[in-house]
């Protein structure tokens, strides 16, 4: 960018005055003539322009594009819809309205029966649950008793076997002791009494009528 261009553009941007620009571009014919032309157009641009401006209707497009129809703030339609909905709910539900003794009663149609049915169902369910529990407990108890009886039987059998064996051993020992005692006695008799007895027996044979 040349120096003259910079000066010219500084004037265009309003950084220097026209006279300053004119002075500085005085020697440069090309840029001076551009400056003069630009000044002429600028003056022309600043002159007022009085041609009538046509009126363009943009409001319809604007309304269509950006304006939304204002909503009605009346409560009546909403209230009407709410009551209709309420009436529908009341007619479909088991809710009952009764006028009695200058009073209004709201109740659920067939409520006691439903409650009784619900109670019966619950009780039946509870009963079944309890029976199942007792049944299981009984089975467990029976199984435990059976296994304990088997254990007791095994124990008793074992004990009996042990006792019998002990008795037998004691008997054998007793018999052995008896035999040994007899044997001792026999020896003693043979040694001490057999000869004299033999004599006694012999004398008895001699005198049989006594």
């Amino acid at each position, binding site marked *: 960018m040349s120096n003259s261009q910079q000066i010219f553009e500084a004037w265009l941007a309003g950084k220097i005055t026209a006279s300053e620009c004119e002075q500085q571009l005085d020697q440069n014919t090309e840029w001076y*003539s*551009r400056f003069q032309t630009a000044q002429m157009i600028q003056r*022309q641009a600043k002159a007022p322009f009085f*041609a009538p*401006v046509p009126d363009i209707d943009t*409001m319809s497009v604007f309304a269509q594009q*950006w304006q939304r129809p204002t909503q009605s703030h009346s409560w009546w339609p909403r209230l009407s819809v709410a009551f209709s909905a309420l009436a529908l709910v009341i007619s479909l539900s088991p809710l009952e309205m009764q006028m009695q003794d200058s009073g209004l009663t709201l109740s659920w149609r067939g409520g006691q029966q439903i409650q009784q049915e619900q109670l019966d169902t619950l009780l039946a369910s509870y009963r079944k649950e309890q029976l199942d529990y007792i049944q299981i407990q009984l089975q467990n108890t029976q199984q435990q008793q059976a296994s304990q009886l088997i254990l007791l039987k095994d124990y008793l059998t074992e004990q009996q076997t042990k006792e019998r064996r002990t008795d037998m051993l004691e008997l054998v020992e007793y018999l052995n002791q008896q035999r040994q005692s007899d044997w001792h006695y026999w020896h003693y008799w043979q040694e001490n009494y057999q000869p004299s007895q033999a004599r006694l027996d012999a004398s008895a044979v001699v005198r049989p009528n006594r």
Partner: protein
Amino acid sequence: MFKRSDESLIEKAIGGDAKAWQQLVSRYQAPLYYFGLRLLGSPDDARDLLQDVLMVLCRNLAQYRGDSSFKSWLFGIANYRAMDMLRKRKATTEFTDDHDFYDDEAPGFEQQLYGQHTQRMVQQQLRTLPPEQRLVVELRFYQQFTFDEIADQLALSSNTIKSRFYAALDKLRTQLELADVEQSANF
């Protein structure tokens, strides 16, 4: 009186405020119409351009993001539409301009420093420029946009804009000198 910013008016208009929209339109209606009048040379075409730009503006008001000034954004739309109209017109028929935009009855107009004659001559010579150069001169002198703003609007480089601008000045200088010589010869 307090003047609302363009951004504030846009925000209100988007919210459905008709007054804000009317105020925005009235603020730019005349500059847009005169822009069309100078560039296209015909009041009918200028009116069509104004209507077209205002309709586009109304439909795309929410598209303005505030990256540039609203005026610059608006003239970006106007430039595109005007050049489109010029191209279509050139394709159908060569334009001959014999319109006179100046209202002779306007108050004080006779007392302008550079009289009606000079202004008409400059205006006539401006209309002989190629559309691209005419547009740059229009935007620089009449709409007071900087070279960078014009470059943004036309999606061109600043150097290209300057090149067009100086070429337009040179051509205008030559034509004005020729016109001056012809007038002197006629007298």
